[in-house]
């Protein structure tokens, strides 16, 4: 873009010195922190306030499968960061391949979660299964929705990458979707611990 240099100069005058999309994403992520804190806060109230005892880790939920899924999401984050590093060096092929790898791993995460849900429902564990069921499905469900949205957005970004939209100088779109994706990974790290292991 011809205006890119002028834009960069303008950013440096702002106190954040970053692009507008990137700043917007960070503000959005700040609101997302509060969204998930709301869910976690409710979880604390419902769990510690519950009269009946909470199932021990692994009693109802399949921890080995979800630990594997957690690892998969961490790997997808690495692929995303590799996609960003590729375009920073002007490597178009690397950008496309790593983006595709991120999408495949992200979609697989949702697939494993869907499998987990069907297995749990099959064994009679539904959102109506007491506070444990409600909080489990609310927290993992909202996170799964975030992952799904991330995968859809990345497919869109990959489409633009395939058309050669991103360059070594102009790739804010890749950086912004990357920030969202890593945030979703970060939230899962917290949720996996408090929902599955504690």
């Amino acid at each position, binding site marked *: 873009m011809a205006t890119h240099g002028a834009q960069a100069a303008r950013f440096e005058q702002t106190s954040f010195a*970053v692009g507008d999309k990137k700043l917007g994403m960070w503000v959005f992520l700040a609101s997302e922190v*509060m969204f998930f*804190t709301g869910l976690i806060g409710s979880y604390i109230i419902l769990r*510690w306030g519950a009269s009946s005892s909470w199932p021990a880790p692994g009693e109802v939920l399949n921890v080995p499968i979800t630990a594997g899924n957690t690892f998969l999401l961490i790997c997808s*984050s690495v692929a995303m960061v590799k996609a960003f590093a590729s375009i920073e060096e002007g490597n178009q092929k690397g950008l496309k391949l790593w983006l595709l790898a991120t999408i495949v791993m992200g979609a697989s995460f949702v697939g494993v979660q869907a499998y987990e849900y069907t297995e749990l429902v099959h064994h009679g564990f539904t959102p109506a299964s007491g506070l444990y069921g409600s909080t489990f499905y609310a927290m993992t469900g909202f996170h799964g929705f975030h992952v799904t949205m991330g995968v859809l957005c990345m497919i869109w970004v990959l489409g633009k990458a395939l058309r050669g939209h991103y360059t070594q100088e102009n790739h804010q779109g890749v950086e912004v979707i990357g920030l969202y994706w890593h945030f979703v990974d970060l939230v899962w790290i917290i949720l996996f611990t408090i929902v599955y292991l*504690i």
Partner: protein
Amino acid sequence: MSAEHKKPRYMLVWGGLAVLTAIEVGTAFMVRSALSGFGLSEQTMTMLIVLILIGLALWKALLVALYFMHLKWETRALKWLAAAPLLPATVMVVVVLMEYV
């Protein structure tokens, strides 16, 4: 923007996250029996495990934020913006916990 910083060692962070995840799962399932000889009460044991697990999760979250989200190389202003929601979030969790602990 972030072009001037030296390339982060992503694979090292990846390895760290993988190892920490394995330690977490191990902690959740093996620490109880490993510490059974120390005569800790059930409640102390649970508290200890919860604290270790939360600590490990926060450590992993910090690694993702610093290296994958490049916060380590961002401007001071952006770091503050990213950290801003942590204060109300912490207040909220602590206030809620104080009801029960």
